[in-house]
């Protein structure tokens, strides 16, 4: 093993050295020889000429004899020249606190015109030593004073050179502070016009896509459409069944409590029939679609955006809106009314189960009263709601997916936004539709 010329550990093996230096500097200022010999491999001899100690700071003077000795750092200020000695084991995963802070404070108070870094009984080291040295180097740079670390082993100096090789990209640095409440509120408000514009643009593109589709000139594939039909239609049946059956239960239970006061329990069947067909079936289905299908649209398209698949489509001359959005909007807007119909049916069955099985109503009577309450106009209103909800959910999900950023976190944001905006959209659409149907008088 060829011994490296700069391995100072070999030159100063004793642990008592730090104290020796400290005392020699403090007690015998005129004795220049011991100090210079005590600082191994220190090239600058003039330091010690007539050493008058301005101050000696010792940080972390724990002298544990155990294998991993804590990192030590000691500052000796001598007429402007600050010599900083490093000793002990500098291990990142060690428990001992870094002594760098205390030394830094002393150095700032001292007012040095040059800094020299000297290893002194240095044991194991890793990048925690490098961090301490870097901090001093940065300090020296800030003060525009020289800082040498020539006495360190070559491996360490290479690392230091590597860390200093590329100057910090100051232009790139940015404030990491969090925006205040007003600032983020302002940013949110300022973003509204742009968001509205891009949303409108997207809706416009989708409309143009539809026009091309009906003219038979769109690039959307029939196979994609049927796949979407299956995914957002047939595969949603179990969850739609469960939810609407339970909603039927709830409607019947809640209704009967009130109707019983008038002895009109039987009208619970009409209540369930009207409630489910006119609005509840559609709203429940819409919300299920928002959580189930809208979220999936946003996640799929968002991940495609992350993987640059959307860009790949565009470069192949396939407009993403036609190729990806059209099949989804078509499928969801057509399947949601069908699911609404199914949900109406299941809800009425739920009401029937509660009414006949638990409240003891006569099945034939229940059926008759259901038919009485059930109007075709109610059914059409429900289906119209379903169609609108399908469009809202599909467009929102696709829009959020397509404008997704390029990271995993962005996909999450897009999916969340898709569900939230879909549900908000459903409620707003319901309000508008209710208002319109009221005017028309249905």
């Amino acid at each position, binding site marked *: 093993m060829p011994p490296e010329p700069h391995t100072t*550990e070999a030159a100063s093996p004793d642990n008592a050295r730090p104290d020796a230096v400290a005392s020699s500097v403090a007690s015998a200022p005129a004795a220049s020889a011991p100090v210079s010999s005590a600082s191994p491999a220190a090239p600058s001899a003039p330091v010690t000429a007539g050493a008058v100690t301005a101050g000696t700071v010792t940080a972390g003077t724990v002298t544990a004899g155990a294998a991993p000795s804590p990192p030590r750092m000691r500052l000796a200020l001598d007429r402007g020249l600050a010599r900083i000695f490093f000793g002990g084991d500098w291990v990142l995963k060690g*428990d001992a606190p870094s002594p760098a802070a205390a030394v830094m404070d002393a150095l700032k108070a001292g007012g040095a015109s040059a800094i020299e870094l000297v290893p002194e009984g240095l044991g*194991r080291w890793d*990048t925690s030593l490098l961090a301490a040295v870097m901090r001093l180097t940065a300090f020296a740079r800030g003060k525009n004073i020289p800082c040498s670390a020539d006495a360190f082993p070559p*491996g360490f100096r290479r690392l230091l050179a*590597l860390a200093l090789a*590329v100057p*910090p990209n100051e232009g790139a640095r*940015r*404030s990491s502070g969090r925006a205040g409440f007003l600032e983020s509120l302002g940013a949110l408000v300022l973003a509204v016009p742009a968001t509205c514009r891009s949303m409108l643009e997207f809706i416009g593109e989708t409309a143009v896509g539809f026009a091309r589709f009906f003219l038979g000139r769109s690039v959307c594939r029939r196979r994609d459409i049927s796949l979407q039909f299956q995914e957002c239609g047939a595969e949603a049946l179990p969850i739609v069944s469960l939810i609407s059956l339970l909603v039927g239960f709830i409607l019947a239970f809640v209704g009967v409590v009130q109707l019983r006061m008038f002895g009109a329990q039987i009208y619970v069947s009409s209540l369930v029939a009207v409630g489910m067909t006119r609005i509840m079936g559609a709203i429940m289905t819409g919300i299920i679609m928002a959580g189930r299908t809208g979220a999936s649209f946003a996640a799929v398209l968002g991940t495609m955006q992350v993987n640059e698949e959307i860009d790949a489509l565009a470069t192949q001359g396939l407009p993403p809106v036609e190729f990806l959005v059209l099949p989804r909007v078509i499928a969801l807007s057509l399947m949601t009314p069908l699911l609404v119909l199914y949900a109406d049916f299941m809800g009425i069955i739920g009401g029937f189960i509660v009414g006949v099985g638990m409240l003891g109503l006569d099945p034939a009577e229940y059926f008759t009263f259901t038919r009485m309450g059930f109007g075709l106009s109610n059914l059409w209103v429900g289906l119209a709601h379903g169609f609108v909800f399908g469009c809202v959910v599909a467009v929102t999900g696709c829009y959020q997916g397509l404008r997704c950023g390029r990271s995993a976190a962005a996909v999450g944001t897009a999916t969340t936004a898709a569900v939230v905006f879909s549900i908000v959209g459903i409620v707003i659409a319901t309000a508008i539709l209710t208002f319109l149907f009221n005017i028309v008088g249905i």
Partner: protein
Amino acid sequence: MDTPHTPLSGTYTGAPATGAPGATGTPAPGSAPAPGGDPDGVPAITVQNLTIAYGSYAVQKNLTFTVNRRDVFIIMGGSGCGKSSLLRVMVGLTPPAAGTVCYGREDFWGGTKKRREAILRNVGLLFQSGALWSSMTLAENISLPLELYTSLSPADIREQAMLKLALVGLAGFEDYYPSEISGGMRKRAGLARALALDPNILFFDEPSAGLDPLSAALLDELILELKESLGMTLIVVTHDLDSIFTIGSNSVFLDAATHTMIAGGDPRFLRDHAENPDVRRFLGRGKTGRRA
């Protein structure tokens, strides 16, 4: 033990080439390895009779090789031969179908999950595209392991993160998100994260993939420099010949057809003297009789 630099064997057991560059054998002074000790003569990793399988399909069988300390060990072979699968087994992501992987003297897969996690704390991995956590800034990416496994103060952690970024030439980019920087920078940031805990052993999955030749060469230089200065052992999965010859000191060649290793040793030696003509052809860029 007070002597800071323990001389370690720079010989390659099981490798035919002994005239390999001795530079990698000399330890960097002062940089004694991190906790866990550095028992002389015990190789960093020993793989014995390892079989990697997906279901009943064996990707690689009977892999036996040794990674010495401070080696740059190359895992090479054609596309789809199971290089990355081997890497995944060695870093604990997929269990092997048979055989052992030993870190030092400890059987990696034979121990508990806790032991594996403890071993992996001394192991870093640079993924092919960096695999930085996209919801965190670069500094946060590097800080996370430091927060979990060291007792450093938040200020010190920040300092460490900035230092690690400076080492890979990304000083000043602490508060950037991975999506805001280029692919090459992401790779270097990934290296900074792999270095976060000053690992003894560092794995690289295709370090030069997706980089231009100049950036790839610079990354190779950086890898070597860090390895020399910090005294790490490197295991590099790659099929980039420039990298293989520049940094590799020992290697294993996996074959897709026979599902096992067909050569091992210093890649430069293998290029000229490998018994298997396929290996010579691979390393000689197909110059000795190209197939396709």
